[in-house]
């Protein structure tokens, strides 16, 4: 894009909204500029993705203070690792949210490992109690119509397995236990459920 004047105008806009008359730069483009040390681009990228990052981390972790901490780590990773983003492998959004999800899940697991050492016997009960809360929460907060519609198109087992794994941060072994389904079935449902979602939501991406 653009001559020096246009670029200056873009820089002057604080929240990453494009200057009048210019289309908003893609997240991929903002990420590429971030990789070259452009702080304005990074700030714009922050404004675009921080709500998704924080929301996802909080969905998995629940605790606001912890979520804020993990979200900060993730967003700083975006700055640090920007040059490692490979557009051939996917969108900037997916790259960032993949990092966010993994960090949130790793935090859950490391906390859980600590709890398990304290009380191995209690794990099963705690997990079972967690399921109702998650299921309810997931049910209440599924607002995005298209994602919701796509999830509704899945079989019950596919949907429950994906929701527990993605929003609940459970391993597929825990999911199998919570749903009282064989491990092999859960693995297969996670995969074919995601494939079905991909095909349904393909239009959105």
């Amino acid at each position, binding site marked *: 894009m653009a001559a020096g004047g246009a670029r200056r105008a873009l820089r002057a806009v604080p929240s990453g909204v494009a200057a009048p008359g210019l289309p908003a730069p893609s997240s991929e483009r903002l990420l590429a500029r971030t*990789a070259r*040390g452009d*702080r304005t681009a990074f*700030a714009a990228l*922050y404004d675009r993705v*921080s*709500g*998704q*990052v*924080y*929301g*996802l981390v*909080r*969905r998995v972790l629940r605790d606001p203070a912890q979520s*804020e901490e993990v*979200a*900060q780590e993730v*967003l*700083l990773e975006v*700055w*640090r*690792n920007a*040059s*490692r983003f490979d557009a051939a*492998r*996917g*969108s900037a*959004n*997916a790259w960032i*949210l*993949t990092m*966010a*999800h993994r960090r949130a899940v790793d935090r859950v*697991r490391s906390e859980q490992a600590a709890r398990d050492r304290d009380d191995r016997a209690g794990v099963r009960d705690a997990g079972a109690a967690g399921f109702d809360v998650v299921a309810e929460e997931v049910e209440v*907060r*599924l607002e*995005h119509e298209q*994602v919701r519609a796509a999830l509704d198109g899945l079989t019950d087992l596919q949907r429950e397995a*994906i929701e527990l*794994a*993605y929003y609940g*941060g459970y*391993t*597929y*072994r825990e999911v199998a236990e919570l749903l009282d389904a*064989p*491990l*092999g*079935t*859960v*693995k*297969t449902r*996670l*995969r074919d459920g*995601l494939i079905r*979602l*991909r095909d349904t*939501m393909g239009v*959105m*991406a």
Partner: protein
Amino acid sequence: MTADTHALAGAYAVDALPRDERAFFERHLGACDTCRNEVDELRETAALLALVSVEPAPPALRERVLAAADVTRQLPPEPVAGPRGGGMGTRLRPFLAPVAAALALAVVVLGTITADLNRRVDELGDRVVAAQQDSQVLSVLAADDAQTVELKTTGDATVRLLYSPELDRAVLVTDGLPAPGEESVYELWLAHDGEPVPAGLFRPDDEGRSLTVVESNVSGAELAAITVEPRGGSAEPTGPSVAHTKL
């Protein structure tokens, strides 16, 4: 094996693999473009699920992140991998030097190349063994009837047995298991009708980690146990039991 291994791509894409299984699958991803492409696609889909949980970040976070970025060095781009085996040509070049000047040198170089080739063959052998082990582990992970049990241990160690009766195959994974002593090894036993059958010897690394693949006598075993045995192992358990479980 490929079809079974593929089944893990979904669980991996939503971070639903436990840590150890994630590590195995990631090694597999390094070698399997089909799985890698599928994972990329499924992650793209999974990221859309985050659209329903958007929530504004606390306002103070923005300043903190931007301030942290100011004092954080960015990573350089990943180095692009060069063509494979490129080093060999350089090493062979001394042979092209004039014979008179190179004779003495050639002996040395030849020695180096032979040693180098031997090392490469060894490395290749290790890698083939590692790859075989990986594929065995993955086959168990991906088996429809795969089950995991945690063995009760005498200490803090984590000892898990992952097994598939159908494949008659099992994988024993340990973490934090103390060294068995200079002259000893750990031996895994699987009991059939009350009779312990030897199922493998192992020594954990410095952090107590080990991975042992068991390729027979898994189906129908009712008990698994680990004992400390003299180096070389025993035909029946003689040492103290450090872990056990019913299957």
